[in-house]
């Protein structure tokens, strides 16, 4: 078995989770069993992994595992049809679409929250006492069953969390008590697992126990750490046939000097403190591999792309219309290191020549401030009618937008590879990027399948885009070349790269 490990999968995933999910799907498609392993408790994991295109069997969460709920078919559970609510005793009063009050003879005794983005499905029930304190909360899984119960302290802070199996028995307890003067989780206790209980002082200790269980159940397994925060745990895992750390990003903020620049702290463990704990560090590009090999000549580095395009994607891309709107896509988190403000400035310049140009952001803002700044910028530049902040789209949903977009821009300070570009190219979208570390040169040959301009050179970027949007022949030629370039990241090629190192390990 291959275990690809990260903290969680979210409603809005970043490239790391996308990459991990794609790799899981790739391995399973090639008949090499793999699982997307997560640590954090998430009642929405089924929803989020489904949006990544994974089946339940392809995901494996620690809490789900101990709760015995790794594979439960989803059954929508409307709150009003919940059998545990005695409708001959309580009134359910729908206050608004987000929650319903449970009332006894006119007095609220519980608040029932609706699962986000659903109509009337149960999310949780918050019971309160006669003084109005929240005392207990029952939490329901996306798949429609009660998964955990929370008890509260007097002041409303979380007190005890119980995680249940399908018989309602608690299998994990988390207590929240004092560490010094601060109330925080002090104990994870695994109850009666294979006849014994286990007490842990933190969640990672339990996660290590869990991963070791996986290794002993499936001897000969490979484990890959996809998040630097998990490197210390995976370094301690025993009895794995092979252990890797996969770096999805650059290892130093000093991208001009990747061989000598100061490391991000989180990368120290795998590179300097405990490199021997891993069979190799895997990076997405040959350039980063070479930089790291030069920096740490003793250690083993391998380059394998962190994404691939499926034959279905390529077929869909080739079949897509070549008659596209003047839409420029920006796909990625709206975060400072992605510099989305440059894209807006570029658009302003493009509009001088291409009055119907549109810029469409697809990605969630890393903070409310970030979104606010961008909104203000759009207003100041008076480009409101030409900029769209579209809702986050899951990997299963994004292709529909890509199919009729002309250009994708990348304005980041740094990237690990640029999987967003590869995916867009597969659909014939022409990339225009700042020349950055890493990935730009791997993906784009300037003037052939897109354009590379100097970092932060908005004028140059605007000029390239104007050219593409106004010269149809040029665009068609580069679009075709983009698809051809994406095809070099096809499933078989990428999987063969993996297969090579797994065989060696």
């Amino acid at each position, binding site marked *: 078995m291959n275990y690809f490990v990260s903290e969680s999968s979210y409603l809005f995933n970043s490239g790391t989770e996308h990459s991990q999910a794609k790799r899981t799907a790739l391995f399973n498609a090639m008949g090499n069993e793999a699982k997307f392993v997560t640590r954090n408790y998430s009642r929405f994991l089924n929803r989020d992994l489904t949006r990544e295109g994974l089946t339940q069997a392809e995901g494996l969460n620690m809490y789900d595992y101990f709760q015995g709920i790794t594979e439960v078919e989803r059954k929508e559970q409307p709150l009003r049809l919940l059998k545990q609510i005695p409708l001959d005793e309580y009134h359910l009063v729908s206050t608004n679409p987000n929650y319903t009050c449970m009332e006894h003879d006119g007095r609220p005794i*519980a608040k029932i929250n609706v699962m986000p983005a659903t109509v009337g499905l149960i999310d949780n029930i918050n019971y309160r006492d006669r003084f109005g304190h929240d005392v207990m909360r029952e939490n329901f899984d996306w798949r429609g069953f009660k998964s955990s119960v929370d008890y509260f302290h007097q002041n409303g802070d979380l007190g005890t969390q119980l995680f249940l199996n399908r018989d309602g028995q608690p299998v994990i307890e988390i207590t929240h008590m004092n560490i010094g003067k601060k109330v925080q989780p002090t104990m994870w206790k695994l109850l009666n697992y294979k006849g014994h209980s286990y007490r842990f002082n933190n969640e990672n200790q339990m996660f290590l126990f869990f991963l070791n269980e996986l290794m002993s159940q499936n001897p000969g397994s490979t484990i890959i750490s996809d998040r630097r925060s998990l490197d210390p745990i995976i370094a301690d895992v025993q009895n794995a046939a092979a252990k890797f750390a996969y770096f999805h990003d650059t290892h130093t903020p000093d991208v001009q000097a990747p061989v000598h620049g100061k490391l991000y702290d989180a990368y120290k463990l795998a590179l300097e403190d405990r490199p021997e704990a891993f069979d190799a560090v895997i990076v997405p590009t040959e350039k980063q591999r070479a930089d790291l090999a030069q920096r740490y000549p003793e250690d083993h580095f391998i380059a394998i792309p962190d994404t691939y395009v499926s034959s279905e994607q390529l077929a869909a891309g080739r079949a897509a219309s070549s008659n596209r709107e003047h839409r420029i896509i920006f796909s990625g988190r709206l975060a400072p290191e992605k510099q989305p403000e440059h894209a807006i400035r570029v658009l302003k310049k493009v509009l001088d020549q291409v009055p119907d140009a549109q810029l469409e952001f697809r990605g969630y803002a890393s903070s409310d401030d970030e979104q606010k700044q961008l909104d203000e910028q759009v207003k100041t530049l008076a480009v409101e009618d030409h900029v769209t902040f579209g809702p986050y789209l899951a990997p299963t949903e994004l292709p529909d937008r890509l199919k009729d977009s002309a250009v994708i821009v990348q304005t980041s300070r740094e990237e690990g590879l640029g999987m967003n570009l590869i995916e867009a190219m597969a659909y014939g979208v022409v990339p225009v990027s700042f020349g950055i570390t890493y990935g730009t040169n791997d993906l784009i040959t300037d003037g052939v399948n897109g354009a590379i301009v100097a970092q932060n050179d908005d004028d140059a970027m605007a000029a390239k885009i104007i050219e593409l949007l106004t010269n149809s022949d040029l665009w068609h030629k580069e679009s075709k070349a983009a698809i051809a370039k994406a095809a070099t990241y096809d499933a078989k090629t990428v999987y063969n790269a993996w297969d090579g190192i797994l065989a060696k390990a």
Partner: protein
Amino acid sequence: MLGIKFRGTYKMNFFVNALMQKQKSGIEHAELTRLRLFNQHDTPARIVLRNYDPVLHQTLKDDGVDEAQVINMFDYYQQTQATPFNPTKVKDLDFGVLNTTTEFEAEHHRYLVYTPQHQLVARVNVRDDTEEVTSTELFDGFNNLYRVDFYDIRGFVTLQQWYSPDNKIENEVWLTPAGVPVVHAFNRADVNGDISQSGWLLTPVNGQVFSFDTIDELFGHFLNQLNDDFWDDKQPNVFILDRSTIADYTMIHFRKPAYRVLHFHNAQASAQDPMHSIVNNNYEFDLSVMDQFDASITATKRQAKDIEARFHPRTPIFTIAVGVVPERLLNAPRVPVSDREFGKMVVFARVAPEKQLDDLVRALGIVHKDYPQVSLDIYGYADSTNNYEARRKVLEAAKEVGMEDQVQLKGYTTDIDTVENKAMMYGLTSVMEGFNLAIMEASAHGLISFTYDVNYGPNEIVEDKVSGRVTPYKDIPAMAEAIKQVLADKSLAQKYSDGAYDSSKRYAPDAVWREWQALLDEAQKRWPAKLAALPTAAEK
């Protein structure tokens, strides 16, 4: 789902109480006596208990009560009515910590469990000098006491008390033996900052979730559930409420009909002024809602008459003795007075202020002047109220009348037959009584009784000039005179002793059962009308 164990039996007579502890009050004795009587007459009965009690099933075992006939509310929801005894031993505990070491602290009857680094993991409290675990105080890896687990005597965690960061009991959770939380109590501060039990949640396995403000509300829900579990269109469930304050409100608000009966185990008002005195606080509510019950029970006719006269209930009051004289005693050979120790008086009672036993000593003091043979043996625990005031007063009185040697405090005994077959007289000088089983038993042993004329019980159980003498309340010389008359006249003594034996037949099992049968018949008679008022039942 719940109470499935009881399905198949239908229609039930429930005796409703809070607890069945080792040291019982008259109410618990009355219930056990009644249970035996119902069993002898093949009439289904269950004692229903409200309070959590981790040693209940041991008590029942010791008392020879079939646990299937006792439904404790917590057991019911915890699904532990019939859990076998398999006490948890210290060695059975698993704290989830490897390689712990254990130290015994004899003075606290507990073990201390440590990690290899000598960090405290738990304190394990054990029962006396056994290895049986009664509770564990659990610590997390940061030295916080986060929970205390209580073990049922049968060997499972029954209650978990979760602690707050400032070390107060915050949440209480009762579990099934499989560890599923089913009953919850919360302790929280109100707007004034005063902490009290602020709510209850019932989360039965696969059942509906209910929220309650108080344990009384929860108990009411439980009683309704029992009424459903044992529901029978043909006959009513009968609920005898033996401890009124725990369920009187809820019983007049039952969801579905049942035959609901108030049992007055104590005097409803001052025994000396039953018509005008402030009523017994415990019964104030019940006396105000008697007509919302179906019937009431008193142990004596006199109490029934007083309640009728003052409160005019429109529902019937049944008089049913709370004591039963077993066939064994009724058929035992009678001991003639001449074979008894002349002048020996005994009392079986707690040495408590309301028993006024110092009055009895003073009466005997007067007798003692003419009959130096008289003596008094008192059997019963001394009440600790006001630093054992009652006992002090008895001893002071004995000294005053020069009977230090003749008045003896014997402590508690169960060997009543031996004591009462040797003695001659029985005395009672209480302020008031609810019935008084002891004087009934004394008569059944042929003892000549002397009692103040007090409500309720003594002045009815003792028939004046038949089985002894009933003398005016607080008239010590009158009682002394009555005793002297008996001591002076051997044939009179024998006549009263015979009268005592005979009068106890009023409390023979068959006699008391006839009184119960009258109530059960009335319940049945009223049932069609009650059922007719319930549309869903009528349709069935």
